[in-house]
């Protein structure tokens, strides 16, 4: 470009648009910098001998890497594979979008498909067709949503209040993580307490290194786990210090303690780590999806997740992200579908990236939505944050699409934030943890983010966090603390969540607890979409709830607002 060239006023205006702060790169298929259409991806194919898959996507068994072998031996149904693979990809795509074919009809085929075949199927589909398919293939009939509740200062009081607000706004799962990892026990307790202050039955998790995450779960300080990462090439899997077998064992370990869990993967992680073996991002992600399936895990968080800047920078990258959500659902896994990381400087692009999951509905549309302003989001920001709540509610109302949230009047929000902070104050006192002052409670009731809060004594908190681990504090101690502080309803709700691990009902695909503490999963809330007029559609009380916004002019008296 010549520097002296005169620029038009329009170019200058366009240069100022936020979208031009986003990064875009050229495709480079040789190193895997390509979304889903690479000449180096294998051709689909399978060969079975004596009940064993001896050739997968053109590779003989002796050359299988560990993902190939795990997928061939655990994920693909050997009985079904040759017949399923004989069906042309475009016919399978038709099956996916044809409302007269049921979800079950698709599963009968998808159980026998190889990674390259699944890729070939979605390559025949545009995004509208994929959304059609996702609407049918989502495992749970009722969609839901997940929130992040974190604090830039790891302030437990803030996390409790934001968790309570998020819980009241409709999220069924809440996830936290830390800036300073040693803070984890206090923040996980705060999340657990806050979650119960909103609506009962909200499940919580704390994203940490695998072994620590399991320990908090075993103690009942968290209710489920999600940060169990899998990768699409052998070297990157090993860089993550795991294999499909170690991860399958970990999955059984969680189930053995009655704890719900899902794996995490996403397009772009392999090329980001410089070892994509020259395969497209989506092909490698499909291998992750099938490893998850083969490990017997009920679900997967995918949709690029923390690598969204990579598929987001290449052509058709967001189509590939939708395709990975679709394939997870199409092989009968719960799908927590991303939309959980800062994605674009452009509001227009943020929404466009969101609609393919919001419109068809997924098990968790976001995984998660930042319940704080993004500056407090310790997952490095989400695609949507606390300042987008009203926009989200309007989108739901405009399109009559259920994104799992609702408008809540400010008085109720203030009450629930205050109550969560007071409950945490009581629990901390009961457990002998550093005091939470009335001044902190007052501040957090009205706060937007951590900048609005008085700082805590971090060193004292960290000492206390260590003592929580040393003393063996469990979820039962939190129940007792809630009761002792006079928050008996929250104590009951938390005990009900803990009791779930005795029955194991939450271990099934796509399970959540309703505010009535009933288990809703793909077993008893099977997606029955069969075309227009069927499947989940917001109606009745839920639709009335969705109609409410911060400002709606009254029809009775246009000088006033309703709600």
């Amino acid at each position: 470009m010549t520097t002296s060239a005169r620029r038009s006023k329009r170019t200058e205006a366009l240069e100022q648009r936020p979208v031009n702060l986003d990064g875009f790169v050229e495709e480079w298929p040789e190193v895997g910098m390509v979304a889903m259409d690479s000449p180096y991806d294998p051709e689909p194919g399978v060969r079975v001998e004596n009940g064993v898959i001896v050739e997968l996507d053109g590779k003989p068994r002796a050359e299988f890497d560990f993902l190939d072998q795990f997928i061939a031996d655990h994920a693909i149904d050997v009985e079904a594979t040759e017949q399923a693979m004989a069906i042309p990809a475009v016919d399978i795509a038709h099956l996916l979008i044809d409302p007269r074919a049921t979800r079950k009809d698709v599963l009968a085929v998808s159980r026998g498909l190889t990674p390259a075949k699944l890729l070939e199927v979605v390559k025949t589909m545009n995004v509208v067709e994929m959304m059609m398919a996702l609407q049918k293939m989502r495992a749970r009939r009722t969609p839901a949503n997940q929130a992040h509740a974190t604090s830039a200062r790891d302030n437990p009081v803030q996390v409790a209040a934001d968790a309570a607000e998020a819980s009241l706004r409709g999220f069924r799962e809440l996830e936290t993580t830390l800036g300073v990892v040693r803070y984890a026990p206090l923040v996980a307790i705060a999340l657990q307490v806050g979650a119960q202050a909103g609506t009962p039955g909200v499940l919580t998790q704390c994203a940490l290194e695998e072994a620590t995450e399991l320990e908090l779960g075993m103690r009942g300080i968290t209710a489920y786990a999600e940060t169990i990462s899998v990768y699409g090439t052998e070297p990157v899997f090993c860089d993550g210090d795991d294999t499909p077998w170690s991860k399958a064992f970990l999955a059984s370990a969680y189930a053995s303690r009655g704890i719900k869990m899902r794996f995490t993967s996403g397009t772009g992680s392999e090329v980001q780590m410089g070892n994509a073996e020259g395969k497209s991002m989506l092909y490698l992600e499909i291998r992750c999806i099938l490893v998850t399936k083969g490990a017997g895990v009920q679900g997967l968080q995918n949709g690029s997740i923390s690598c969204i800047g990579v598929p987001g920078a290449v052509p058709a990258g967001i189509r590939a992200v939708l395709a990975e959500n679709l394939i997870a659902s199409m092989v009968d896994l719960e799908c927590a579908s991303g939309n959980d990381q800062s994605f674009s400087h452009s509001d227009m692009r943020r929404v466009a990236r969101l609609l393919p999951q919001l419109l068809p509905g997924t098990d968790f549309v976001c995984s998660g939505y930042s319940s704080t302003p993004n500056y407090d989001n310790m997952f490095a920001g989400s695609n949507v944050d606390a300042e987008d709540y009203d926009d989200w509610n309007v989108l739901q109302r405009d399109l009559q699409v259920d994104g799992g949230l609702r408008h809540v009047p400010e008085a109720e929000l203030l009450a629930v934030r205050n109550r969560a902070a007071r409950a945490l104050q009581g629990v901390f006192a009961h457990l002998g943890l550093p005091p939470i002052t009335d001044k902190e409670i007052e501040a957090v009731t009205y706060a937007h983010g951590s900048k609005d809060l008085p700082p805590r004594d971090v060193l004292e908190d960290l000492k206390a966090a260590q003592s929580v681990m040393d003393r063996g504090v469990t979820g039962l101690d939190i129940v007792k603390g809630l009761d002792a502080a006079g928050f008996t309803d929250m104590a009951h709700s938390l005990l009900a969540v803990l009791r779930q691990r005795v029955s194991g009902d939450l271990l099934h695909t796509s399970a959540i607890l309703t505010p009535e503490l009933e288990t809703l999963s793909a077993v008893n809330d099977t997606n029955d979409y069969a075309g227009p007029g069927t499947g989940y559609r917001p109606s009745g009380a839920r639709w009335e709830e969705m109609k409410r916004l911060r400002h709606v002019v009254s029809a009775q008296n246009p000088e006033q607002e309703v709600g």
Partner: protein
Amino acid sequence: MADTGVSTRRTLRLDERGTAGPGGRSDEVVIGLSPAFGDFFTKTIVDIPHAEVLRELLAGIEEQGVHARVIRFRGGSDLAVIAHAAAKLSGSGIAVGVLSRGTTMIHQKDLVRLSNLELFPQAPLMDLDAFRKVGRNAARYAKGESPEPVPARNDFMARPRWQAKAALLHIKETEFVVPGADPVELDVRFQLADAG
């Protein structure tokens, strides 16, 4: 984009002086460079010239009265590997590792490789001042002090802007890896380029 604050252009000359060995003096910090730093690549992900990066690191170390040695590691492009290997060659046991794109780490030889003293994972946030402070802190560790860590910066919009470019830079740098190659001691010279 970070303001690089560079008005005059300096060029960097790195002459190889043979295989690098362990340092004898306890008052030195080693700066470990990635395979293509100041070679195929000339600037960080936000266009800070490598000459300026190195100059700030060296200045930060030397202003503390500590000696600096610059070594290139061609054997790998993993920052932890480079920084840890550099720390093992450092007479004080302290080293700074830096990748071409600007990601930086202070390491100590007795820590495990996947640990570190200070890590600056977001290359787009590394400006001249940050590199100067990294050099200063490394020198203070080498003197046995416990400096306040350089304040970590965080920008939640860095990912949408830089993540894919960072991946490309990493892949490109990895192409210059020579497996098993010995670390090489470098002579560093800065020259002021003609205005142009």
